[in-house]
């Protein structure tokens, strides 16, 4: 029975519409030989560890020990000569020289959660006339394959605070993130039990067969995207396992630890290993208006452990030189400590890190003043950071998209990559 059913579809499909693959999960690399010359770029991946709510630069990568703004924690030396970071990040301290560059001189000017997040997601300030794509969508477009069998932008955020989906703006929903908000599994990725796997495949094939004549003489990119979206269904369903950390050996899961953030970092590694170009893992909630030091002791421990486990694992698998791991959020926190022992929103002088792909490990760019109130040296904006990220990935930040007739460079007008942190 099974054979004859499948047999029908193959015959019908070939008869009516020429070549046709009923099994969408198969992916034929040879068909994409035109992409071969870009293979180097094609292999590049990004994992963004988004520190939602705004992590304190003073308790992470730009400590001010002994200063009135410094707080109770010490600074410790790192594997990079002369570079000190907070004692809350001992594991990362041991890995700075090998993997990570620090940028300490970000001035992004907007210390409002919404506005700051928009700037750090898109690398530019909001512009009422145009919806800019976020970094994930740009990377999905620049690094992904059009008919990819895996998702090309996955955004994980299972915490309840300040949930932000991000978006693909004018690049269109083809590059919108697959967003995990409720569980560690994407929605609608698993077949319902009420339909057999064979029927599920058959009806997709039937759909394609009926659609073929319609699409044949009609010229429309939107129409093409509809076909593609359905063609990707089976492949994406097959990627369900990528989200299942039970597939990993127990000792590997132990390395990443029991926290949700750690587990999501492990999923992120599984995803980039399978070819997903951009994964965002958001860790909340750093918005420590009160009890800043308690909050950071807890969150930094999670960040330190999960990020080092991720970097080690990527390195062991030979993936780190192709994978760029980033940390930043919407802004940093005030050097001044308020009456509730908190630090407030602060965008004038804060830090981000870049690790792995294209990055000069141990580089520490820019300086803030003694107490961290202002950038003292090497001030850069979000656009410069984005230009740096794109350059590290081998993408030309000056490349332009066209929105209507309007040119939009990948990183904001006038921005420049920070050469000192690039290889």
């Amino acid at each position, binding site marked *: 029975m099974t054979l004859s059913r499948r047999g029908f579809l193959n015959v019908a499909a070939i008869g009516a519409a020429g070549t046709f693959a009923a099994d969408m999960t198969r992916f034929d690399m040879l068909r994409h030989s035109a992409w071969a010359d870009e293979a180097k770029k094609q292999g590049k991946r990004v994992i963004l560890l988004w520190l939602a709510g705004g992590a304190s630069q003073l308790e992470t990568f730009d400590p001010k020990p002994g200063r009135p703004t410094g707080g109770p924690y010490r600074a410790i030396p790192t594997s990079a000569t002369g570079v000190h970071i907070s004692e809350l990040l001992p594991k990362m301290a041991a890995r700075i020289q090998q993997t990570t560059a620090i940028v300490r001189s970000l001035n992004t000017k907007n210390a409002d959660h919404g506005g700051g997040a928009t700037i750090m997601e898109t690398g530019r300030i909001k512009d009422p006339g145009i919806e800019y794509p976020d970094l994930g969508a740009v990377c999905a477009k620049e690094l992904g394959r059009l008919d990819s069998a895996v998702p090309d932008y996955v955004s994980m955020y299972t915490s309840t605070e300040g949930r932000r989906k991000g978006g693909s703006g004018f690049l269109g929903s083809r590059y919108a993130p*697959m967003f995990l908000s409720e569980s560690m599994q994407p929605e*609608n990725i698993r077949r319902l039990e009420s339909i057999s796997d064979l029927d599920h495949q*058959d009806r997709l094939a039937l*759909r394609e067969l009926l659609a073929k004549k319609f699409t044949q003489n009609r010229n429309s990119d939107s129409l093409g*995207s509809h076909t593609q979206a*359905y063609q990707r269904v089976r492949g994406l369903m097959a990627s369900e396992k990528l989200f299942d950390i039970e597939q990993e050996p127990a000792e590997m899961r132990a390395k990443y630890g029991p926290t949700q953030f750690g587990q999501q970092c492990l999923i992120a590694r599984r995803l980039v290993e399978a070819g997903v170009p951009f994964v965002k893992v958001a860790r909340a909630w750093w918005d420590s208006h009160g009890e800043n030091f308690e909050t950071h002791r807890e969150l930094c421990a999670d960040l330190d452990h999960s990020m080092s486990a991720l970097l080690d694992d990527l390195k062991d698998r030979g993936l780190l030189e192709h994978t760029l791991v980033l940390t930043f959020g919407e802004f940093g926190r005030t050097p001044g400590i308020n009456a509730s022992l908190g630090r407030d929103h602060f965008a004038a002088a804060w830090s981000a890190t870049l690790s792995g792909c294209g990055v000069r490990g141990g580089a520490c760019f820019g300086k803030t003043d003694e107490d961290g109130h202002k950038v003292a040296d090497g001030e850069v904006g979000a656009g410069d950071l984005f230009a740096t990220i794109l350059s590290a990935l081998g993408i030309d930040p000056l490349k332009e998209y066209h929105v209507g*007739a309007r040119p939009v460079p990948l990183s904001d007008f006038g921005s420049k990559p920070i050469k000192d942190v690039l290889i």
Partner: protein
Amino acid sequence: MRWILRIHLAALWLLSTVISASGAELPSADLPIEQVIDQFTQQRLDAEKVSAAPQAGEANLLRRLMLDVAGRIPTSAEATAYVANPSAAKRVELVDRLLASPDFVWHQRNELDRMLLPNKPNDGDFRKYLLWAVKENRSWEAMFRDMLIGDEADENRKPATTFIKSRARDLDDMLNDTAILFFGVNVTCAKCHDHPLTPEWKQHHYFGMASFFSRTYVTKKNLLAERPFGEVKFKSKRKDDTKGEQTAKFEFLTGAIIDEPVVERSADDMKKIEETIKAAMQKDDAPPPEKPSFSPREKLVEIALRSEDNRFFARNIINRVWDRFFGRGLVHPVDQLHAANAPSHPELLDWLTRDLVAHGYDLKRLIRGIVLSQAYSRSSEWTAGSQPPDPALFAVAKVKPLTPRQYAVSLLIARQSPDQWPALDKPEEWIARREQLENGSNGYASFFEMPGENFQVAVDEALLFSNSKRIEDELLRDSKTEIVGYLKSLPDNAAVIEAAFQTICSRPPRDDERAAIDGYLQSHSTDRVAAIRQFVWALLTGPEMRFSY
């Protein structure tokens, strides 16, 4: 460089109303709109030596008209009746019937809503206002006044000011969205003259427009108000600048300037006024602020509508309505209505502008003319040769993705058994059913993306249709009232295939489709219901259902 806004040139070009761009006189104002559309589109096709695609078939045209004018696919009975109708005037009759139907009111409301408040979908009061205005066939000019000036005392018109109120926190949003949506001009690029590609751009145009909105605020009680004074200052960032800080004038896009009457106020008076405003913005029980004698927003409306400066306003809405029905504006993109971006059919736009103004900005009249034209009813298939022609020729109909609302309502129609609808001779029964469809479609509508330029279907949508329980439960149920249940009650495969195509695609199946589906159903005869379900799913998820064509 083409996208740079050159106001001075724009003003010259926009003055040409009766005499067309080429200097020739425009055709008579008494001609039917559709005839003028066809005359000018044909002229350009002839000039470019392109033969247009043939007219779409009747079933195809009915489906397009229903989606475009009524916001939904036809029912199976409507589709059958239209094709069977021998009347030579049936297209005109259909269009007039649809334009007078509740379907049009809902759909026109939804279309205006997504245009005017794209970031604030489903604002209840604003949607209520739009519904009222469409029902009244309120003129676009009056709606413009309702939205920009507003009347807090009129129950029907009051919610229109949500257009401004929802943007009042941000001056850029107010001025940009007004310029884009009502005048077809995107002035964003002018705010920053440091823009590397627009060195010659004059900032005062941008800040001139800003000055019309800079005094606008919303009180704590959510009333729209304006300050009696306040200026917009701006400064050039150019190194060679000698002017220093400048005060923006009330300057419209055409360069026309409004002078504000000078009012002498003592410092004490100013302080008092400031305090009243502060109170109104902060306190619930503060008295409503006094309306100032000079209202910049009122002046903006006045200047935009007066004949010598009016061409942005009328042209913009014509272009946007055209864009909606043809999938591309006469001026493309629709927010680049300026001299450096000429219309594809300048004389036609001139003629339509004169017609719209002469007929009191009646959008229904414009829509009627557009959908009765031959240009509108061409086939969307291009089989004539290798490359499809320049889209600006409108030689072939564009495939248009459905809006979330069109798709949702259409799915709800397609999933029903065809015998569940009111009889065609009982249109009064349809009124309540249509409202149910509208309300019942909210859930599905929220799943889909609003199409914009270069729209792409998200893979999430395909996954939703493929694997969600809701789709399985609601669209593929086999109870008697649903399409799957109806089809399974039919005696043989041939009847199933006919009915499914007629209900979901509004047309009979082609022979190759009959043969393929018959083969599929036969090979799956052990579980006929499941097979019918897969077949229905394949039609519901197909491009014919997802797009208007």
